[in-house]
C-alpha cells in the first residue's frame, strides 16, 4: 500500500508567490495612476482603477499558510488493464481557490484525463475538511512494478494573484498483477494423489462424485444409506462415491528472454507477457480446482520460487510473484533446483518461448526422471522478432525459428508434449492423453 507521506517542503516553489497577474494589476494601476496625475488625465486613472480594485481584493485574500501535499494510490495492488485512482491530497488553507495537479505519464501507465492535468475548485465544503483530494484515473498497461507519477501540484488564490507551487511529489510504485488470460480445461490432471481436490479418483472413497449403490458394509457412514433401495429390497444399501483427489502442479516459467513489444493501446504482447499471463491462468485454474500449485521462475534477475500451496491466498501469492518477473538469461540452470519439491505424480507445466534450448533440455530431463511434463509454447504468432528488422536480422530470425522447430520435434519425440498457447482449452488434449496413458499403464 502506497500511503507513505511525501513532502515537498524543501522545494523553492513551496510558498505563496506573487503571480504575473497580480504584478500586472499593481503595475498597470500604478502606471495609470501616475500617468493620470502627471498628465492630468482622469480617464487613465479610470482605466487603471478596476485593476487597482482587483489588486486590493487579491491582497486582502492572500493565503498565508503553505499547504502540505501527498500522492496516494488507494489500491494495494492493481491488475493490468484495470482502472484505479491516483489521489493528490492537499491540505486545505484559507483563501486557496483553485488546486491543480499534473500527473506525469509513466511507462505502460495510461491516464484519464489523457495528459494527467486536473483542477479542483475549492468549495466551502472542502474547507471544512482537513484535506482535499484531486483524483486522476490511472491504468497500468502491463504487469510488473509500475511507477505512477511524479506529480506537480499547485494552487492559486482569488484572481490568480498568488500561486503556491507547482511543487513536485515523488512517484509511487505500484505492483501490477498479471491479468490471467482466459483458461479453462475440462480434462483432469493426470496424477491426482491428495485427498482434497476435485479430480475424481479411479478408486471409490469419500467424495462427492456418485459411483454406485451397493449393499451396506461395516464402516459405511449412516448418512450414505439409500433408504428407497433399502426399503424396496429389505436389505441396507448405501450410495458409494469416488474419492476426490488433488495433484501438485509445478509451474515453471522461462523468463530468460522477452521477445516483442508490449503495448496495451495496440494490444501487442511480448513473449514474456504471454508466458506470465498463461502461468497466471494455469495457476488460477488449478488452484480453483483445489490442486496444489508451486511456481518457479527461470531468470538470472528474478529467480523466484514458491512452494506448493492451495487456496485463494496462494493464488494471490502466485500472481504477486509473477508480477516481479524480469527477463534475463541464465548461464546455467541447475536441474536439482528445477526438480526441487516435485514428488511422484507431479504435473510440471513449463511455459516458455523456447528460443533458447536450455528450458527444453530441462523439460526432457524432468520427463526422463519420471515427472509428467507439458510444455506450453508462448511464442505466439503475433510476437515480433527482436532487434531491427533489416534483411539480415529477418534471415537470422528465420534460421533460429527453423532450429527451434527441430529442437521442439526432438523433445516431442522424447515424450514431452509441446502445445502452443491458445488460451482456453490449450491443455485439454494433452492432459487427456496423459490421463489415458496413465490409465493404460495402471491396467
Amino acid at each position: 500500500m502506497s500511503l507513505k507521506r511525501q513532502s515537498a517542503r524543501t522545494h523553492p516553489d513551496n510558498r505563496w508567490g506573487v503571480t504575473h497577474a497580480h504584478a500586472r494589476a499593481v503595475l498597470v494601476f500604478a502606471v495609470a495612476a501616475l500617468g493620470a496625475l502627471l498628465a492630468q488625465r482622469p480617464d487613465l486613472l479610470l482605466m487603471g482603477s478596476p485593476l487597482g480594485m482587483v489588486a486590493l481584493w487579491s491582497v486582502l485574500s492572500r493565503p498565508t499558510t503553505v499547504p502540505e501535499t501527498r500522492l496516494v494510490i488507494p489500491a494495494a495492488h492493481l491488475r493490468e488493464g484495470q482502472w484505479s485512482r491516483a489521489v493528490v491530497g492537499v491540505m486545505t488553507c484559507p483563501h486557496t481557490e483553485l488546486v491543480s495537479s499534473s500527473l506525469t505519464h509513466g511507462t505502460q501507465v495510461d491516464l484519464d484525463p489523457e495528459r494527467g492535468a486536473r483542477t479542483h475548485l475549492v468549495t466551502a465544503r472542502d474547507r471544512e475538511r482537513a484535506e482535499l483530494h484531486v483524483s486522476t484515473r490511472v491504468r497500468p498497461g502491463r504487469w510488473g512494478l509500475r511507477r505512477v507519477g511524479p506529480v506537480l501540484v499547485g494552487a492559486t488564490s482569488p484572481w490568480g494573484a498568488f500561486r503556491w507551487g507547482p511543487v513536485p511529489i515523488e512517484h509511487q510504485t505500484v505492483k501490477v498483477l498479471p491479468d490471467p488470460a482466459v483458461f479453462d480445461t475440462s480434462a483432469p490432471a493426470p496424477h491426482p494423489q491428495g485427498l482434497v481436490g476435485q479430480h475424481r479418483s479411479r478408486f471409490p472413497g469419500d467424495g462427492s462424485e456418485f459411483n454406485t449403490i451397493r449393499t451396506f458394509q461395516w464402516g459405511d457412514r449412516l448418512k450414505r444409506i439409500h433408504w428407497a433401495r433399502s426399503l424396496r429390497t429389505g436389505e441396507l444399501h448405501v450410495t458409494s462415491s469416488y474419492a476426490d483427489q488433488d495433484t501438485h502442479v509445478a509451474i515453471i516459467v522461462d523468463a530468460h528472454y522477452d521477445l516483442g513489444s508490449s503495448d496495451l493501446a495496440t494490444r501487442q504482447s511480448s513473449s514474456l507477457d504471454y508466458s506470465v499471463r498463461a502461468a497466471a491462468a494455469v495457476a488460477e485454474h488449478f488452484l480453483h480446482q483445489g490442486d496444489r500449485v508451486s511456481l518457479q521462475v527461470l531468470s538470472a534477475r528474478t529467480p523466484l520460487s514458491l512452494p506448493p500451496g492451495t487456496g485463494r491466498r496462494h493464488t494471490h501469492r502466485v500472481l504477486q510473484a509473477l508480477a516481479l518477473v524480469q527477463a534475463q538469461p541464465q548461464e546455467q540452470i541447475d536441474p536439482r533446483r528445477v526438480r526441487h519439491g516435485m514428488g511422484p505424480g507431479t504435473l510440471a507445466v513449463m511455459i516458455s518461448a523456447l528460443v533458447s534450448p536450455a528450458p527444453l533440455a530441462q523439460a526432457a530431463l524432468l520427463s526422463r526422471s519420471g515427472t509428467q511434463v507439458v510444455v506450453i509454447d508462448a511464442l505466439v504468432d503475433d510476437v515480433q522478432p527482436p532487434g531491427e528488422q533489416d534483411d539480415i536480422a529477418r534471415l537470422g530470425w528465420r534460421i533460429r525459428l527453423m532450429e527451434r522447430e527441430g529442437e521442439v520435434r526432438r523433445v516431442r519425440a522424447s515424450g514431452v508434449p509441446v502445445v502452443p498457447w491458445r488460451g482456453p482449452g490449450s491443455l485439454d488434449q494433452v492432459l487427456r492423453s496423459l490421463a489415458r496413458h496413465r490409465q493404460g499403464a495402471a491396467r
Partner: protein
Amino acid sequence: MNPMKDLLEDLRSLSQQQVLLRAAIALALLGFTTVLLIAGESSVYALVVLSLLSACCIINPHTVLPAAVMIYCLAVWWAGVADPFDPWAVPATLCLLLLHTACALSAAAPAQAELPRQLFRTYAVRLALVAGATIVLSLVAYAQEAWGYSGGLIAVLSGLLALGLAVGLHYWVVTVRQAEPTA
C-alpha cells in the same frame, strides 16, 4: 527542455475552457481596439503593433506580455484620445478588466486541464462587481467634471503620496513571512 516546444505542445493540447479563455482575451483586445477607433484617432502602426501584441498575449497569457499589452493600451489611449472625459473610456476600461481576468484565469491552471464551470460563474459575479464599481467611479468622475472641481497642485501631490504609500504598503503585505504547514 525546450520552452518553444513546450509552448507549442501546450497550444496543441489546450482544453476547451482554455480555448474559451483565449477567445475572451482576443475579444477583449478586439473590443478595446474598436473603442479606440471610435473614440479617437490612432495611427495604423499603433494598431498593427497592438494586433501583434494581442497575438503574443493570446499565446502567452502566463507571462509578462499581457502587462506590456495593457500598458501599451494605456499609452495609445492617451496618445489617440484627446478628451480626458470621453465616455468611451468606460467600455475601454471594461475591456482591459476582461483581458486581465481572462489572462489571470488562463495562467492559473495547466493548459490541458478542464476548468470547473463553477469557476466561470464565480468570476462572472466578481467581474460584475468590479465593473459596477468602475461604472460608479466613472460617474463620480463625470459629476466632478460637471461641477468644475479641480484639485490643483495639492491634489496631484497628495495623489502621488497616496500612490507611493499604497505601493509601499502592498510590498510590506506581500512579503510577510508565511506560516509553515502545521501537519
